[in-house]
């Protein structure tokens, strides 16, 4: 019996699975939380015999991983950071794949009156005027950068805010948990919000302003800078991501009857 157990233990430590071709891709938390990856990855595996290993991080860290050559491609949503990434010679090119949108979430009572806002900037001004708790990602992610640019568009500077502005330095899910815990306002991407399980007293208050659209782009890591990067696999994946099959899968993906992503890759 003892030997059996030790044997089982030994086989456990020695197990290694056989793999198809594999590549690593850094994606943003908001993309992963949407659940779309669980639809796309099995199809990619079936069509290309390619195991895409996802590293789910914020856009800031995703770009760092790409710069260091620790992943083969990145899928992120912060155009300015992406252009800087390309300017540094870290990637081969930038390919737009799809977009979704950001929404403003807040307590159902909505003391700040965000529901009546006409634009995103107006919504933020209402939050600032009422000085109600607002949770910010504060982690240099694409969503965080978007939020900062919206404050700027609303002629407000988050560095000067008092205690009501709370930068938590965490991923989308953790930030939503925080907002739910203290009944605060927060900006989130629609997908993460719909998939979020701990909504508590929060509700979707504002959406639809075109500035809230959120473009996702795919950037393969440069094989010149990082010779080990699997550029051939990254190109294969890109060809699949802009294919008609990906288009129908992405456009048809719904949560609670709501469409999340709009495919807009150019052929």
């Amino acid at each position, binding site marked *: 019996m003892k030997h059996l157990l030790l044997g089982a233990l030994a086989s*456990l*430590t020695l197990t290694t699975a056989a793999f198809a071709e594999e590549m690593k891709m850094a994606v943003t*938390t908001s993309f992963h939380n949407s659940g779309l990856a669980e639809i796309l990855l099995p199809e990619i595996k079936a069509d290309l015999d390619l195991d895409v290993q*996802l590293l789910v991080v914020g856009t800031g860290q995703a770009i760092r991983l790409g710069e260091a050559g620790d992943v083969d491609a990145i899928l992120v949503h912060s155009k300015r950071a992406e252009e800087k990434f390309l300017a540094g010679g870290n990637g081969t090119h930038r390919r737009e794949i799809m977009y979704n949108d950001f929404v403003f979430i807040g307590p159902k009572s909505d003391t700040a009156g965000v529901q009546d806002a006409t634009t995103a900037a107006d919504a933020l001004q209402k939050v600032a005027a009422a000085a109600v708790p607002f949770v910010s990602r504060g982690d240099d992610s694409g969503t965080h950068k978007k939020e900062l640019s919206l404050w700027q568009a609303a002629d407000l500077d988050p560095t000067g805010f008092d205690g009501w502005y709370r930068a938590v330095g965490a991923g989308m*899910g953790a930030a939503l948990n925080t907002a739910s815990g203290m009944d605060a306002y927060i900006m989130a991407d629609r997908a993460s919000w719909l998939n979020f*399980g701990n909504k508590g007293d929060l509700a979707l208050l504002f959406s639809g302003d075109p500035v809230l659209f959120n473009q996702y782009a795919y950037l393969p890591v440069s094989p010149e800078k990082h010779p080990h990067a699997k550029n051939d696999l990254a190109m294969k994946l890109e060809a699949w991501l802009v294919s008609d099959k990906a288009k129908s899968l992405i456009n048809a993906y719904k949560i609670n009857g709501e469409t999340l992503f709009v495919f807009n890759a150019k052929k």
Partner: protein
Amino acid sequence: MADLLDGMLRAFWLVVTLDSDLVEITLRSLRVTLTALAIAAAIALPLAAMLSVRRFRMRRVTIAVLNALMGLPPVVVGLIVYVFLSRSGPLGVMGLLFTPTAMIIAQVIIIVPLVASIAHQSLRELWSDYHDLLISMNATQVQRVKALLWDGRRALLTAALAGFGRAIGEVGAIMVVGGNIDHATRVLTTAIALETGKGDFAMALGLGFVLIAMAIAVNLAIHWLGHTESEGRW
């Protein structure tokens, strides 16, 4: 409270139905941590015995540093290992980042000081009992170390189990160096962090209960294998 009950229920169902994802990440947790523990014990136990038996100039400092490193913040260890293993770091060519091997390396670094410190504490007391005897028998340095390690094996087991406990429940370092990749480097603790992020507290708690149950099972198994607390032994 409802979350807690939901979590227990979820844990129960996950275990009863032998959920394939759960089995996979649990086995990976065990594999990573037991491998790390074996390596760490192979380093830390002889080191602890050497520190008890030998007298050298930097001995006090070494012991103090080991004790201090017991409190190493895992996330810092993770970052340092990450910087070394990153493609642009000194060991980047080995391509170990985001693999279970990287997670094992990080855990070894985290638990070696802990295991060595606890082991040294008990071996030092044993050595004060054995000192005169072993010296009068003219035992060599190696023989002394062997005698201490063998006769102190129960205490060393405790040290190893403490190391196991710290490694199996650790999340900061393996999140950084492992990346929490589904079907590659996802383990129980990183899965718990992920489910918490999704706001699915019942699932996160369910996984947490599985983790606790597994830690208890491993401890019991090791005691059973070592015949501790049985008649005629100590």
